[in-house]
């Protein structure tokens, strides 16, 4: 068990980092603003800090060490050239208030990424500002709200959201003043079109659709739904979390999306960083460009400029210009693949998933028989008879050295097991994972207790999450 960094302190120890400076000067500041005590920060030497955090890193599961089949998360390889280039001092040490003529290189990076995202969105303009997918959803919803406001249709408050959607969709839309209404899926996992009809009136703001949806199913009726929504005066938002299934095949704008966000940390290979930073650029159709948040990068003649003059802008949505470090990585990825590589990415991601699904459905139940793309959702129906829950299967996978798939999501599949292999994995890795999944299915038959009490081989057993919820301990105290 690794100690906390605070528990490693040697009282009085300090690292030296300030250069000598002969400053015979008194503080100017009002003495009663000063505090009496020093903060309880660690007192640990450099080597021990390195060892501590290195050891902590080794307690983690990561893409660079193992296959990470988390559905909906697109845990693809994070290319090292992205890391190298994004770390250039000429990018990372720039201050946002440096004069524009001196930061043309980074502005070009941003401008080019805007354009490449325009390319694959089939829409007219892109903002790189949002810090994450949910932040992009929020910006997109603000844009839609402002559009209706300017148009004098503020009564449009109903936002339709399929039951398979990520929780961020309803959570984001309410923050823009919309009222989410849940739409259920039909037996194919498609949106039930009949259910939309009662809402096609002048209170409809629009619909938020994840395409392909969280079942991995591409809804072939998207353009029909979009047409219905448009005819009722509403807007179509596409959650682009699953763009890894569409590159080179179909553009959201071409099937009727008006607003969408990308997740650069999913589709475009930037690392997840234990939860962030991500980046969630938003693309919009031509008539929504005048609502984009500020600033966006433009090219005037040979110069790149930050444009704050957007007619009906929703305003600022964050400090500065975006998660630039993430943006650089995504641009390197685009350039390293080109059109050909992007399409291949999607082709192989979908093939890997199809292959895995074909093999795993021999022993695992799948609720929707529809064709899927980059991911698919199994459940525990065959194993349930032995009292085995999805959580047990997930924990047993940990025993075999695999991170569990996404579980209990989407909510429309009872005890869901959501698997997304991505394009990055070799056939060997995929086959090994399949073998283990099938083995667990066998164990569930022959030795259910073994599965139910997993994990067995890890440093830790299951954690007491109930205790953490009832009596949370959220910080170290002396």
């Amino acid at each position, binding site marked *: 068990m690794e100690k*906390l*960094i605070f528990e490693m*302190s040697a009282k009085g120890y*300090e690292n030296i980092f300030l250069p000598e*400076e002969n*400053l015979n000067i008194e503080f*100017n*500041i*009002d003495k009663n603003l*000063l505090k009496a005590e*020093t*903060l309880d*920060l660690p007192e640990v030497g450099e080597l021990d*800090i390195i060892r*501590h*955090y290195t*050891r902590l890193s080794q*307690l*983690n*599961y990561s*893409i660079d060490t193992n296959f990470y089949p988390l559905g909906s998360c697109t845990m693809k390889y994070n290319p090292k050239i992205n*890391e190298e*280039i994004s770390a250039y001092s*000429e990018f990372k*040490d720039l*201050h946002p208030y*440096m004069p524009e003529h001196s930061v043309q*290189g*980074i502005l*070009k990076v941003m401008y080019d990424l805007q354009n490449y995202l*325009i390319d694959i969105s089939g829409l007219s303009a892109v903002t790189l500002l949002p*810090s994450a997918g*949910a932040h992009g959803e929020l910006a997109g919803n603000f844009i839609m709200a402002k559009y209706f406001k300017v148009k004098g249709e503020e009564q449009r408050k109903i936002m339709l959201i399929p039951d398979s959607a*990520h*929780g961020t969709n*309803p959570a984001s839309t309410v923050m823009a*003043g919309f009222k*989410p209404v849940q739409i259920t899926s039909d037996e194919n996992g498609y949106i039930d079109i009949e259910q939309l009809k009662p809402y096609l009136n002048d209170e409809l703001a629009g619909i938020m659709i994840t395409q392909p949806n969280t079942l991995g199913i591409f809804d*072939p009726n998207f353009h029909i739904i979009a047409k219905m929504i448009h005819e009722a005066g509403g807007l179509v938002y596409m959650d682009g979390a699953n763009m890894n299934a569409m590159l080179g*095949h*179909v553009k959201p704008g071409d099937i009727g999306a008006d607003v969408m966000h990308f997740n650069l940390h999913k589709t475009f290979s930037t*690392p997840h960083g234990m*939860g962030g*930073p991500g980046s969630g650029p938003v693309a919009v159709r031509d008539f929504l460009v005048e609502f984009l948040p500020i600033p966006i990068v433009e090219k005037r003649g040979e110069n790149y400029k930050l444009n704050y003059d957007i007619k009906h802008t929703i305003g*600022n949505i*964050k*400090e*500065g210009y975006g998660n630039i470090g993430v943006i650089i990585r995504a641009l390197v990825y685009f*350039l390293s693949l*080109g059109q050909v590589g992007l399409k291949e990415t999607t082709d192989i991601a979908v*093939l*890997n998933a199809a292959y895995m699904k*074909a093999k795993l459905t021999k022993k695992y139940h799948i609720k929707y028989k529809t064709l899927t*793309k980059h991911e698919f959702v199994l459940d525990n129906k065959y194993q349930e008879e032995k009292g085995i829950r999805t959580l047990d299967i997930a*924990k047993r996978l*940990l025993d075999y050295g695999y991170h569990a798939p996404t579980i209990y999501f989407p909510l429309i599949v009872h005890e869901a097991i959501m698997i997304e292999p991505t394009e990055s994995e070799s056939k060997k890795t995929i086959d090994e994972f399949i073998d283990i999944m099938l083995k667990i299915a066998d164990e569930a038959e022959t030795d259910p207790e073994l599965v139910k009490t997993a994990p067995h081989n890890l440093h830790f057993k299951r*954690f007491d*999450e109930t205790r*953490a919820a009832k009596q949370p301990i*959220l910080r170290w105290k002396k």
Partner: protein
Amino acid sequence: MKYTQLSQEDINEMLQVVGISDIKELFKDIPENEKYTYKYLQEKGLTEIELRELFSNYAKSDHDILDYKSFLGGGFYQHFIPSIVYSILARSEFYTAYTPYQPEVSQGSLQMIFEFQSMISEITGLPISNASMYDGATAFTEAFLMAYRLFRGKKKKFLYAESVNPIYKNVLKTYMQFNPNFQMEEIPTRNGKLDIEYLRNHIDEDTAGVGISYPNFYGQIEDLGEIVKIIKDNKSIAIATYYPIVSSVLKTPGEIGFDIVVGNGQSLGNPIYFSGPTFGFFSTKMDFIRQMPGRLISETVDEDGKRGFVMTLQTREQHIRRERATSNICSNQTLNTLAAAVYLSFIGKHGFKKLGERILKLTAYAMQKFKEVGICIKYDPKRIFNEFVLDIDNSSEIVKKCLDKKIIAGISLEKLTDENGLLIAITEMNSTRDIDALIKAIKE
């Protein structure tokens, strides 16, 4: 480049298992797309050799601005970043890990975040801190939304100081504009500080929260104790956005009595990166935990009684509570909090205090030198930590002039705020020599 790993033989075999002869069949539900053309992206990918060459050129076209001495602040500050920060950040077991949903195989991330939460609570002086927000401005906005929830939507008025960073105010306005329930009111600035009388007269029983900045955008430290008292007497929520380096030597906002403390954590071990990624921190009191946005990590034990860490109180979050979540935030800025944890471990208890003292001394030095050459500093010199406004009315010209001397003198307030002036920030990265050069350049 190519990042897929299947051979043609693999592909053929896999197609056979799937029962198809061409990958195209996996896309048969997508109408053949004739329009799929690119306007900007080239057809072929580049190799590493080409990518390095291309991006070195972009980097070079960023001028030689990094050779300049900089006094830029305004929310982003150049601070020393220890080498070990970059060394740990480069560990891909951290940066290629996902959100720690499976605690048994994520103890590294979880313990790190727990340590980070602990350090942030020290810095803000409040007992609970979350695993991060996007940045300071969005954290500031979320603080107001939380204040609104704390009164179950019964108090609808938000007061914020004009002296808060203009971008923070703009983000706040963006988020609030579509909810007709919210009333926003700006407390004007008098002499570089929030107008206390105005606050006293405009706070009322409908006021959910009051937000100020410590120090404020002009570098001034407000009359915090008095502000908190007025807010508390009115039973509203006291919100501060905070420059965390201040806690090295000055009283923490928690100690002064603020209920919610947020800020941009860039100064704690993160490069400025042309504004991001950095992270927002968010601290509050235990009583308010149920309304807190963002992830929280708690200590607990496993079945054998071993100490470990898990994500907790997830029922506040969007993946469970959906439209009734405390926030829509999902991805946050965890990798940046790792930088902060390593940074604060290295700077340490004693180093942090020395850092703050060095900054105070350098700032005192700069102010004295300006005084000696007859350039006035606006507002109260005794309420300045490291940032101040020079009383000059041609600030943008001065900035231009200094650029010729390879000095970035600061931020011209000409277009940002009502009063003109030059906003100058001093950190440990500015030597007395740099400060002398700045003064000389301005004076010439």
